[in-house]
């Protein structure tokens, strides 16, 4: 096929990646129940966010082939992602601070 095709995962690799994603999801759900029992608090939040970011990166990198594309594409995409995160973090921070002060 194309000169790039052998770099993208094969069908069996896709199945393995999906299996990994399923395992992470199971981990997330079990973390949720562990947290209900043990009250892990911030640690739980950090682990859950970390795991979902991992899933995010795997889907974008392998299923959407971003790992195998030109770097310019990742720049557009991560640019939008980082911009969104930073803008909304500032909004949330200021608005939460306003609630705390009142």
């Amino acid at each position: 096929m194309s000169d790039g095709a052998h770099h993208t995962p094969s069908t069996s690799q896709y199945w393995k990646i999906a299996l990994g994603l399923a395992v992470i999801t199971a981990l997330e759900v079990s973390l949720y129940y562990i947290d209900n029992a043990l009250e892990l608090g911030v640690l739980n939040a950090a682990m859950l966010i970390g795991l979902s970011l991992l899933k995010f990166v795997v889907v974008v990198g392998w299923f959407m082939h971003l790992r195998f594309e030109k770097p310019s594409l990742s720049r557009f995409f991560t640019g939008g992602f980082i911009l969104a995160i930073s803008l909304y973090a500032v909004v949330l921070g200021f608005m939460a601070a306003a609630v705390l002060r009142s």
Partner: protein
Amino acid sequence: MTDLAHEGDVTAEDHHDEHESLGMDARKLGMWVFLSSEFLFFGALMTNYLLYSNRPGLADPYPGTIYDIPFTSVSSFVLLMSSLTMVLAHAALERDDQHQTRTWLFATAALGSIFLGGQVFEFYEFITHDGMTLTTSPVASAFYVLTGFHGLHVAIGILMLLSLWGIGHSQGALSDKRGFNVELVGLYWHFVDIIWIVIFTVVYLLSTS
């Protein structure tokens, strides 16, 4: 060759001899550029939800108290697996296996529909059983509008998948060189999936406790 660029034939290879470009299909570049702006779209909705989700003094019930985590875990899993079937459809097309391409496309649409059905059921339960509607409180409004717009994205994706499936059937073969193609719909579909990955963690798992 002095061919004019158009959606149908704007493929990088046609133009490399006489164009400066990033060396990739224009439609694909366009889809990625569009998807990068979607972060701002869903980001605003999630900000909205996070702002209100822990704010004291709103009318009950808070969505965090009524989530059915096992149920949503299953439907999240279904959507996640639809990303697998989507990528299998694209891989089959790269092998030019038209039959498998159509099968996986249909499977993706079916899994997406199951997810959407689950969402309708969830909304129905929240409204009739738990008494949480769009008008209950700002956080309820935020929940319905966030998950609703995600559901709308899924629905549009299903429509595109079924169109591809139909085109594949009626014209006998699909091609990624066509203006409306498997790879582009796939990118869109995976993106909708990653948005749900974030929603499931941030909105469901993290704001329940």
